[in-house]
């Protein structure tokens, strides 16, 4: 009985429904890599369409593409570079948050590294906006801190 189940799950597909109502299919083995999805499957069964309220039709196909490659063991540095090449910083952020919601660890780690690479030479203002962090310094406090850390601002364009 157990053997039967495993051979059927290897080719089984799961239906996922995005927050904006679109449906996508993924293989059960790929779904296993997204712990949130797997938990929902465990609760709801693998025959019904799994609702993902916080993931949308723009991101999900990209995520599915990543895990498709993952289950065949084909994820390489080149593939990962290609994967994010045409995405801007905000698009990567949306993917990253989706990966977090889905508890998709491998993608989460990869995207967090990619975002770190993108932010490495950015300005303080850019990072504040990016993460939605409020500046709680007074102008005096901030300029004093910037002076102390002047060495870390070398070579950084302040308006980017």
């Amino acid at each position, binding site marked *: 009985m157990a053997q039967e189940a495993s051979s059927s799950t290897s080719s089984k597909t799961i239906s996922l429904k995005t927050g904006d109502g679109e449906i996508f299919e993924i293989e059960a083995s790929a779904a296993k890599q997204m*712990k*949130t999805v797997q938990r929902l499957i465990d609760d709801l069964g693998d025959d019904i369409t799994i609702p993902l309220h*916080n993931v949308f039709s723009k991101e999900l196909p990209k995520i599915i593409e990543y895990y498709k490659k993952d289950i065949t063991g084909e994820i390489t540095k080149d593939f990962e570079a290609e994967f994010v090449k045409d995405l801007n910083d905000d698009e990567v952020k*949306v993917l*990253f*948050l989706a990966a*977090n*919601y889905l*508890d998709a660890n491998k993608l*989460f*780690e990869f995207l*967090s*590294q990619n*975002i*770190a690479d993108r*932010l*490495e*030479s950015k300005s*303080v203002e850019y*990072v*504040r906006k990016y*993460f*939605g*962090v*409020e*500046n*709680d*310094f007074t102008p005096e406090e*901030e300029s004093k*801190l*910037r002076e*102390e*850390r002047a*060495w*870390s*601002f070398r070579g*950084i364009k302040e308006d980017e």
Partner: protein
Amino acid sequence: MASTSRNEKKVSGANNYIPESIVFPILSKLPVKSLKRFSCVSKSWTHLFENPVFINMFRKNLVSKSHSLYNDDDDDVYFVLHQYVHSFRWDFYVLCGDKFEYKLKMDLPSSFHIRVIRILGSAMNGVFCIYDCDNHTMAALWNPATEEVKVIPPGSAEFQGQFTTEIVLHGFGYDHVTDDYKLIQHVSYITFNESSDDIHGLFWEIYSLKSNSWKKFNFDIPVRDWITGSDVYLNGECHWWGKVNNESYLVSFNLCKEAFLITPSPIENVQDGDVDLVVLYGHVAMISNRNKTSFQISILGEFGVKESWIKLFDVEPLFGIEQPIGTVMKGKIFFRKKDGELAYIDLITGLIQEIGIEGGKSWCQMVIYKKNLRRFGAINM
């Protein structure tokens, strides 16, 4: 990392605030320079490096990044244990095995007639520089695998009756641009007077194996603080701990460019033997307070910047530990226990492992070594 907080969903919209539990995994992958700049983002970000959750993630990322730097032939990287036995007899052993439990004795070439041997720095491409610790007048390059020995010719130091000549070797390294092995040493002449010592005639010189000669320089580099202090080599640079006007500095000498940079010490009042330099996760790092039973390990984030020393580990007083030996390999720090046994602590897991070998109190030196059958071009002696 709590999985429940990881799954917090934040509604995006006017407020696109992202919680710390999600931001930290990104920030912990940034270099020190960026993190120090982003400390201006908000008040809570100023204290990132004091946040244990953050430091933990930052450390783990350093570890995984450094693992990817190692080649597949990781297994060929060993330790050489060098120690004083008795009556100026020195033993060299290669330590190998997962837990460094196998000890293979290495024979010194019979031509070595050095009384008090010490290894300078670390092995470079399987080549050691060994020298006499007494007065640094004899040094040789040695590749045990090819059995090549090259005695280094003397430099420009003069020896005259009126003064004492002091030579101090500072670093041994490899210039990858010219495929050359280099040594750097400092020479000074001291006249001992009743009231004070008169030091004059100071100069630095660099030896190149390719030219088999020394070249003098008049750099104003801080000299080694103490003779048996550690020096390390990383990425074409020799680093040592120097002192000038009672201030301590990390000195970084670039062998290819023949230029140097100094970084002030993060701690005041460094005394003899307080600090050891090591390479940790691909960064120059210092072990401080090593004369006490608890010690700290800090990495240098940006050369030349005092503020960029980041304390990564605070090792609590451990029962039975005497002192770190001053060697770190793959995140394992080696030390000597009170009973004389050598052991290591895995800095990430905290596991302590004895390696089944005793280390002599003053003269135990452990050096990273990778066997290399490539001849460095010397004549066998």
